[in-house]
């Protein structure tokens, strides 16, 4: 099987990830909940993971690296911390349901900074216009999970800083392959999963906290200030109620070390080369609509396409039967499809990781060619 669904979750992981998780089971207890050796070991692993993340994502203090169960969990914390019911929020047109659903539940007044796909300058201008309405917060994905478009988060962060508006960044598709620079951006929150570009297991994520305003989503035991009935007013404890996912944290630490060792720049270069190879092959095919950036540097390792006259789910299913694993439909991001004009039909999405090869991409292009009516 050729796995091209890394935007959902990376399947191939560095071998150290599974080894670390297996080691953790039976050896790591609950960090901070006891003075015994297994608790101390767990504390060391958790701290090493916070430090590795802080170093990779430009956070000066590992206390501001919060373990979550997923990027969705982190985004919910961030949104509940900054957005009051009915408050005005400015978001990009490429956001995932992990952003739009919590906002909907809060009854937020959502303004969308609409811009054409892959047009970073227009996107920035749309945000600048939206910021004139003084939103309570701005939320922006770093990379569209549907189209791979890279949004100008660095420049947007500067706009938000200038206007004193807190920024939440969804780094679900960028962490591990693009520079994520929490302190430089001055973002209030940056949320990311551990199981995509960081090559950790499912069930673990990170929330980087830049601001002083945060509100727990869960309340419970933290192993600290236990005599009090309120949650600790310090990080990370205030946002980490309940027992930690230690096998997940151990696996994430191995994944972070892999990414740091390879270098995000090297991973991005590889994914871009593979993406360019796929685009070169697919754009020669008839009956295909391809969503590729005119200039490759505005796109991460995610590529959407449609085969004319075929339902996207049928394309996904037929490619799956031919050993190509990718994802069709709306990708939990109806807003992004609405922004691109693909809401009615959806798209088929191929997404790459550091473990894909040129031969796999060639085979994928060949199989799409079969479906589209011509072999390249």
């Amino acid at each position, binding site marked *: 099987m050729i796995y091209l669904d890394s935007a959902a979750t990376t399947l191939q992981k560095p071998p150290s990830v599974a080894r670390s998780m297996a080691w953790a089971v039976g050896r790591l207890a609950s*960090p*901070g909940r*006891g*003075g015994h050796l297994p608790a*101390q070991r767990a*504390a*060391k692993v*958790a*701290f090493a993971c*916070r430090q590795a993340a802080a170093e990779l994502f430009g956070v000066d*203090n*590992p*206390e501001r690296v919060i373990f979550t169960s997923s990027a969705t969990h982190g985004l919910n914390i961030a949104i509940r911390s900054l957005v009051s019911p009915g408050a005005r929020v400015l978001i990009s047109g490429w956001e995932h349901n992990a952003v739009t659903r919590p906002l909907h539940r809060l009854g937020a007044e959502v303004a969308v900074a609409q811009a054409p796909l892959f047009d970073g300058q227009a996107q920035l201008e749309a945000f600048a216009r939206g910021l004139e309405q003084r939103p309570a917060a701005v939320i922006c994905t770093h990379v569209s999970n549907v189209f791979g478009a890279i949004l100008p988060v660095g420049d947007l962060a500067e706009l938000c800083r200038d206007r004193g508006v807190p920024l939440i960044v969804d780094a679900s598709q960028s962490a591990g392959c693009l520079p994520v620079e929490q302190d430089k951006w001055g973002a209030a929150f940056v949320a990311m999963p551990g199981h995509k570009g960081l090559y950790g297991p499912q069930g673990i994520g990170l929330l980087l906290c830049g601001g002083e305003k945060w509100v727990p989503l869960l309340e419970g035991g933290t*192993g*600290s*200030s*236990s*005599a*009090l009935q309120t949650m*600790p007013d*310090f*990080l*990370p*404890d205030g946002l980490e109620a309940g027992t930690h996912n230690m096998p997940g944290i151990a696996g994430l630490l191995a994944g972070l070390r892999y990414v740091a060792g390879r270098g995000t720049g090297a991973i991005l270069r590889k994914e871009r080369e593979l993406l360019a190879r796929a685009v070169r092959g697919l754009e020669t095919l008839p009956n295909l609509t391809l969503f590729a950036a005119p200039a490759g540097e505005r796109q991460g390792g995610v590529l959407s396409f449609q085969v004319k006259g075929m339902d996207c789910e049928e394309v996904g299913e037929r490619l799956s039967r031919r050993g190509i694993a990718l994802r069709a439909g709306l990708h939990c991001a109806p807003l992004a499809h609405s922004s691109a004009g693909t809401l009615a039909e959806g798209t088929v999405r191929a997404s790459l990781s550091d473990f894909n090869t040129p031969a796999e991409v060639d085979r994928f292009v060949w199989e799409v060619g079969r479906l589209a009516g011509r072999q390249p």
Partner: protein
Amino acid sequence: MVYYLMVCRSLTYAQRTAAMLERAGITARVLRSPKVIDREGCSHCVKIAERSLTPSLVVLNRVGLTPRRIFLQAGEGDYREVGL
């Protein structure tokens, strides 16, 4: 032996403190705070040798890491708070 216990607001804070001291060549160990010195119930502290208190405070002050409270441990169960 006489030790100092620096009570920290969280385990992670204690780990940061200990890591900073170790980097400066000061032996430091993270442990759960003894119940009698723990005001809020469950906290962590950093244990250092008596001779390390002054250099530790210099190092920690330089990087902005402040212990919540400091106790002198003169013997088993004998803790005396030290003014910061």
